[in-house]
């Protein structure tokens, strides 16, 4: 175990691995990635029955929130094992002529490649200016609940009662109207077995009266820049049990008074068994809150090197994800940024210090001219190396007038990890959807047909919802794990899973959050490459329990219950 930052571990305690499965000291030359599969994503949105377009309530007045929404959420709300899809929606703003209520759209995965609109049946037919959402079983009753952040009204906590949602936000204490909430994540930060809730807040914008009309060159109406507004502190709600939450933001030290937060990723950065919280802030420094194990956090972002870009300036952090893309047990933090900034790509160098490696990793140049939002690691070709997807689209619809080479609609990016964390831009060769130009915001991955090929859902700002099926050929073998906590929270959020295969030791964490305003498939997907079986699987639960499985056949979804394989 290499020496890590004293600061990361609170009062100088050495960060010791919880079990003997620490990968950090075992990092070695990575085995090469398998030859690239024939990558093909296909737009199946209308084919599967999804017909939805996001409405921002715009009328030409260019109210700031119009250009920021919204997210897309994978959730198995009816517990049938299939991933359903929720696309969030805006609401009318002054000047917008509504012809009817604007609703989100929940699509139930009916199997056989079909989705059906279940919004009303599931109790979600309610108008709200929704931005993002997070999935988690906060009451540990076995079904996934849903938190939706919303402006101009309360955010909603939808308790799932047998596939029907009931808004219990107000009585549970997490609705907090009058803010500009964006992404959210469930996290059992105090490891009491109940999921707590972290909510990003962007800027001070309680109502439309707070809008500042802005003009490009003092002539052309445009969306204002975030600097024009003060920062709105984030929120951490502690789950007190009995359906009640307590706002513990201040005492937990995660207020982040200067941060304009858009994305949140949960990852145990210092590998001490306690979940840490990383927050992407727009034009203000990133936060990396290290869990002090006493109900408080300490922001160490500047010290570990993730607060600023290489030019020592805060970047426009939009979406965020964290993953082990080198199979060496060390996290990499990726953040989508503004055009001209490249993706932020910060890698733990083994000492708990992060080095910005956008250019070195190969993700920098392809992303240079793009404005990214949704971003996530996923192994789309199941070769055992986590790849990267970025959904792009500018915030100014007239940007081409003012920025040479920058467009409003922008292509997404699919970056293949060729092994060891070097990336290759596959976008030009990954099928027509990857050539399309979007104004993408939320993006998430999920496996809609459980074929091990991870599909992608995107929501365009004031544009259509999309679902792209992964129809790549020649991908590697795979295995998916669904965790079921018993002593830990039911979702197993916070569990660390290490799968050993030909590609080495892959590390994932079960968690909520990441990307931008969105939620991906909760199940953990592992590419096994040429091997049909995982040699060994080790699960370190938040409770401290460890389950080990050996020689596990792939090609299936395996449910692992906490304590079932001690």
């Amino acid at each position: 175990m290499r020496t890590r930052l004293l600061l990361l571990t609170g009062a100088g305690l050495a960060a010791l691995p919880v079990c003997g499965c620490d990968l950090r000291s075992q990092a070695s030359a990575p085995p090469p990635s398998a030859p690239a599969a024939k990558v093909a994503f296909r737009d199946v949105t209308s084919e599967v029955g999804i017909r939805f377009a996001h409405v921002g309530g715009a009328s030409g007045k260019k109210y700031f929130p119009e250009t920021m929404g919204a997210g897309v959420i994978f959730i198995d709300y009816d517990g049938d094992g299939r991933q359903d899809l929720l696309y969030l929606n805006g609401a009318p703003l002054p000047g917008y002529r509504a012809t009817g209520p604007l609703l989100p759209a929940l699509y139930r995965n009916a199997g056989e490649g079909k989705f059906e609109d279940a919004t009303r049946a599931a109790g979600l037919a309610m108008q709200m200016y929704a931005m993002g959402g997070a999935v988690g079983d906060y009451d540990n009753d076995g079904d996934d609940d849903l938190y939706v952040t919303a402006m101009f009204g309360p955010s909603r906590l939808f308790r799932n009662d047998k596939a029907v949602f009931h808004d219990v936000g107000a009585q549970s204490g997490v609705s907090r109207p009058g803010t500009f909430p964006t992404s959210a994540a469930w996290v059992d930060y105090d490891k009491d077995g109940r999921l707590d809730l972290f909510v990003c807040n962007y800027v001070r914008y309680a109502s439309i009266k707070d809008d500042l009309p802005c003009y490009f060159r003092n002539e052309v109406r445009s969306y204002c820049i975030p600097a024009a507004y003060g920062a709105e502190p984030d929120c951490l709600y502690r789950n007190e049990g009995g359906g009640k939450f307590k706002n513990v933001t201040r005492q937990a030290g995660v207020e982040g008074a200067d941060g304009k937060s858009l994305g949140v990723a949960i990852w145990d950065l210092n590998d001490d068994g306690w979940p840490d919280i990383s927050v992407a802030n727009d034009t203000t420094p990133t936060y990396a809150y290290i869990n002090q194990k006493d109900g408080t956090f300490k922001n160490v972002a500047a010290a570990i090197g993730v607060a600023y870009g290489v030019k020592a300036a805060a970047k426009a952090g939009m979406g965020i994800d964290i993953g082990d893309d080198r199979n060496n047990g060390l996290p990499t933090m990726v953040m989508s940024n503004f055009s001209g900034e490249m993706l932020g790509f910060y890698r733990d160098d083994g000492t708990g210090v992060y080095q910005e490696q956008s250019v070195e990793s190969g993700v920098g140049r392809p992303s240079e001219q793009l404005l990214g939002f949704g971003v996530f690691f996923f192994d789309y070709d199941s070769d055992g190396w986590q790849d990267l997807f970025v959904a792009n689209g500018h915030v100014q619809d007239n940007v081409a007038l003012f920025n040479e080479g920058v467009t409003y609609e922008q292509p997404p990016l699919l970056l293949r990890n060729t092994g060891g964390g070097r990336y290759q831009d596959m976008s030009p060769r990954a099928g027509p959807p990857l050539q399309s130009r979007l104004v993408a915001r939320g993006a998430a991955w999920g496996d809609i047909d459980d074929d091990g090929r991870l599909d992608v859902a995107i929501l365009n700002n004031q544009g259509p919802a999309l679902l792209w099926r992964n129809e790549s050929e020649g991908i590697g073998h795979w295995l998916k794990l669904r965790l079921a906590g018993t002593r830990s929270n039911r979702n197993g959020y916070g569990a660390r899973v290490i799968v050993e295969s030909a590609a080495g030791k892959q590390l994932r964490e079960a968690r909520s959050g990441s990307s931008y305003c969105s939620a991906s498939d909760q199940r953990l997907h592992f590419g096994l490459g040429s091997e049909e079986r995982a040699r060994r699987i080790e699960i370190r639960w938040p409770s401290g329990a460890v389950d080990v499985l050996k020689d596990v056949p792939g090609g299936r979804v395996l449910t692992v219950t906490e304590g079932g394989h001690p």
Partner: protein
Amino acid sequence: MPMRLRLLLGALALVVVVFAVTLPMQQKLRSRAEVLRREVEESEKDAREELATRAKRQERVKLLEGLAAAPEDFDLLMKTGSFYVQDREYEDAVFLFQEARRIRPEAVEPYRALYQTYIADARYDRSYDAATEGRKRHPDDVELILGLVHLNTLMAWNREARELINHLKQTTEADNPRVLIASAMIYRQLADTRHAEEDLKAAAAKDPQNGKIHALLSKVQMETGRESLAMETIRRALELEPENGQYLLHLAELQRGLRTPESLQAAKKTAEKALSIELGSSDAYFAIIQTQLAQKHTEEAQRMLESLRRRHPDHPGAALELGKLYVRQGRAVEGQKLLDDYSRGVAIADRSKGLSVRMAMQPKNPEAYVEMAEMLVDNGAPEKAIVIARRALQLVPGSRPALLQLSRALESADRAGEFLELARRPEWHLPEFMETPGTGR
């Protein structure tokens, strides 16, 4: 061995012995001679400076004698004023230029001179007054307009700067490279890189030998993520001005961005060259440090950072990098303090940017001006705060918050004596667009 050879060897040995014995003495003498030579050079330099000072004094006496004989001599007043500006005796210079203005109010030169003198003295509000007053008589004077553009840009009043440039673009000065450069800089501040680039390219076409234009163009290209193009453009600027330290630093930044071992080495060399040209430049020194850090030469970087902090305790980049290093070394308290300092600076910059946007988008709203003035005073920029507070006062005459900030700013700028005069000056201008109701946005 023949006798002759023996004698020869003996002589040689003697020479060697004598040489060996006298070598330290020779070195000592040489060193002493070097010291003496330097002392002579220093004395000569001092003497030259003394002569120059004496000549200047004599010139000044001559000018003043001339003025005593002809106190209304416009040219002499202007010349004497310029003399005082060179010597940084701004108060006297202002008096002389004001006299010149009184004598020939129709002449543009005194207004230009007053504007420039006030700028040099960081009395931006007075500079504003002088240029505005001059423009009333000379509405199309390019120097005065560019002066006002500069001041407006300094205050982040880009809207006003833009309108002035638009005015110039309607005149015969439309193709003047200086006008195009100023225009580009405003576009850049407004995040309109397309038009900034267009103006800079037009300026380069008019004045292709002007390295500054190419350097600015390169900056715009870098900011929009086109590093290779930016690299090409800055090299063109350096062909024209190979010894320009600022251009070299920009090149070093681009080289550092490539992140290869070779490019980092090249960046270090470029930054070192910049430092050799601009001795003592903290920017150049920091650029070398950044390269050291990228190359993971941590010990050397730390030594240099500590040295930089000793000389420039407020250098923000040094605080950040040193703070990170200290924290990693377990010097948590020291390191965190530096990091907190840096974060505070970042937060202030963000707030300042926000207030600038508010002033630009709500030019008739005095609150943003008052808030900005307060922030500027609090953060050591009272000279700018005076301009801003005066604008707030103009928008709401007698506004107590504005008066409070004006008095604080004047006090901080050692100009408290001007408070009553400035607080009572209702004639201080508002831009034309602000005087027309309903066009404030």
